[in-house]
């Protein structure tokens, strides 16, 4: 397994995998709350809302120093989310609309600032609006340290304020009645997410970050009914998507790392939606199928009984077609179900007859009235 060996020995793969995993863990854990709080699109919104902050930071400092731009981006993103909260709290405008307004208006203001900067004969502006946004393949060792430190703080805060965040997400009114500063908690939890998003923008770019906020949480939700398990699972899914995306993009050339991680996260979501026990679609279809079959069996049983009554002999066999005429086309499954339970049997070819047990069952169901 040279690929696994590479994971430990190759500098780039190790850095990218570690970075993507760290990001996946942090974004997955915090993103779980975002998914539950209907803030899934905060990643996308923050990345747009950051533009005026970047432009202003450049206008004020005159430099493209990453730290300056990140600060500008974080402050603008942060102000944007506060505005969203204010609008949602005081008016009937819903979260999605408020987010959309802040996203587009901030970005628009950013464009205005960019065109104003463009007018200045200053070559330092080159690439200003893309400069900040990183790519997963270009993760650096110092990014790992930043991400681990900030992620650690965010996770520590989540662990420390676990019950408060749970209360905030589940029943904020009740939380307020207990005396918790719910609004401050709201601001804090959103701030943690915004910080994670801005760090992610700078290191891995917009789209991967948007996906990492939503996908692990949405996938994890399908597998469990416990918040704690969900958050841990989301962190694990985030890490899994990060590492597997890094590995795949390390196997083939011209396989961009960030988008590969997004697709890996997408696969995790699809698998979860289909296969997760109880909630998953496959489980639901199976349950539906079983219900339908059970209902079909009941209908077929009664039909066989009534047909038998007409012929005065309960052991009279009937063509499947005749039964289908009254019971509908799906009768075959019902009859097979009856046969499995020993209530009916197949008599030469396509004809079916009730067994004595089937007759007893039919009479029981019809309340003995015939």
């Amino acid at each position: 397994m040279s690929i696994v060996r590479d994971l430990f020995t190759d500098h780039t793969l190790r850095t990218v995998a570690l970075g993507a995993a760290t990001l996946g863990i942090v974004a997955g854990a915090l993103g779980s709350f975002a998914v539950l709080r209907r803030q899934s699109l905060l990643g996308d919104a923050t990345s747009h809302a950051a533009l005026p902050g970047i432009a202003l930071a450049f206008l004020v400092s005159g430099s493209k120093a990453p730290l300056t731009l990140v600060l500008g981006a974080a402050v603008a993103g942060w102000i944007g989310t506060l505005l969203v909260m204010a609008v949602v709290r005081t008016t009937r405008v819903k979260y999605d609309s408020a987010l959309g307004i802040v996203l587009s208006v901030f970005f628009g203001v950013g464009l205005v600032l960019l065109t104003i900067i463009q007018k200045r004969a200053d070559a330092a502006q080159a690439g200003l609006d893309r400069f900040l946004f990183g790519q997963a393949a270009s993760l650096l060792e110092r990014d790992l340290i930043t991400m681990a430190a900030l992620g650690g703080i965010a996770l520590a805060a989540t662990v420390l304020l676990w019950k408060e965040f749970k209360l905030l997400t589940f029943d904020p009114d009740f939380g307020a009645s207990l005396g918790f500063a719910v609004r401050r908690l709201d601001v804090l939890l959103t701030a943690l997410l915004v910080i994670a998003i801005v760090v992610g923008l700078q290191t891995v770019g917009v789209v991967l970050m948007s996906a990492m906020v939503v996908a692990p949480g949405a996938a994890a939700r399908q597998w469990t009914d416990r918040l704690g398990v969900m958050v841990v699972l989301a962190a694990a899914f985030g890490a899994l998507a990060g590492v597997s995306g890094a590995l795949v993009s390390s196997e083939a050339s011209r396989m961009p790392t960030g988008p590969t991680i997004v697709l890996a996260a997408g696969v995790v979501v699809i698998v979860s939606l289909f296969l997760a026990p109880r909630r998953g679609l496959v489980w639901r279809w199976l349950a539906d199928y079983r219900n339908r079959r059970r209902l079909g069996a009941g209908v077929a049983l009664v039909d066989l009984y009534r047909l038998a009554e007409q012929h005065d002999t309960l052991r009279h066999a009937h063509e499947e077609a005749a039964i289908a005429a009254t019971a509908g086309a799906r009768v075959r499954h019902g009859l097979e179900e009856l046969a499995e339970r020993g209530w009916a049997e197949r008599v030469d070819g396509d004809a079916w007859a009730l067994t004595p047990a089937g007759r007893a069952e039919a009479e029981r169901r019809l309340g003995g009235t015939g």
Partner: protein
Amino acid sequence: MTAPQLEIQAIAALVAAACALPGVFLVLRRMALISDAISHALLPGIVLAFFLVEDLTSPLLVVGAASTGLVTVLLVELLKRTELVREDAAIGLVFPVLFSIGVILITRFAGDVHLDVDAVLLGELAFAPFDRFVVAGYDVGPSALWLMSGILALNVTFIVLLYKELKLATFDAALATALGLSPALVHYGLMALVSVTAVGAFDAVGSILVVALMIAPPAAAYLLTDRLPVMLGLATLLGVGSALGGYWLAHWLDASIAGSMAGAAGIAFALAFLLAPERGLVSLARRRLRQRWEFAQGALAIHLMQHEGSPEAAEESRIEHLNRHLRWDPDFAARVVRGAQRRGLVARVDGSLALTDRGRAVARELVVR
């Protein structure tokens, strides 16, 4: 005003109207951000269309873009229908995946071609007047003007024809189903409309302005009215107003036109947020203040009435006494009394207060109701 300036404003006004109409329903259905999702998700459609025609200027690329718009809304709708994820998560899952597919396709197969959304959609309002529509040698105006007129006409037709279905499917999907109106079909229709409008408008004015015009004017209208037809009209007006106002803002700043228009839409929303009658922050604060005074004046009138004609009336009617009895501080009490005098509820008779007839009526009404 030069011809291009006039044309830009006309195009922007058309885009604003075309976006505001479906935008109203998006805002009401909590699907506002689908427009932004579409703007990201267009990439794979453009790439696949390019692989097919191998020409960056082919109109087929725009068709590819529009069809991914449709795929986006379809996938979001399918995900939502599983009831395993909510709409916001559904949107947040679909667009990164589609965009990533686009990036992978480009990087793997077309890394040496300048292929991206900018390469296919004009997306810059400033140049729209120079992209002429020429019919049989005659220049009949900017292409965007015609394209957006068509899309606006489509939107108007759709909304007029299906007005009652849209209304019902938006407010009460269950009832709509019961009445046999198939909200799902109406919904898919609306989403197809959003997708076509978005792609057409992205080409004319750029994605961010489309997102702004689809959300901000309808949301502002939502704060100003309770009635759907009024909301549709107001959203259109506010959108067109933002577009025109934004244009002159851009002219004054010599800055990005689309950016200024988005900013103007933001200002329109902020104004509604602050100043809307009834729902605006200012009127809320003023009402709270007024109620506080009215309430205090009413309390004063009731207090006076309860003691009218009783032996302690003279004592209870003294202003100093109010401070103690009603737990008011002297300044506040003095202001309440002045207000009540102005409204003709009380009169001052040598140092103590007396109810007027009007004051008595008000107090009685407050007590008995």
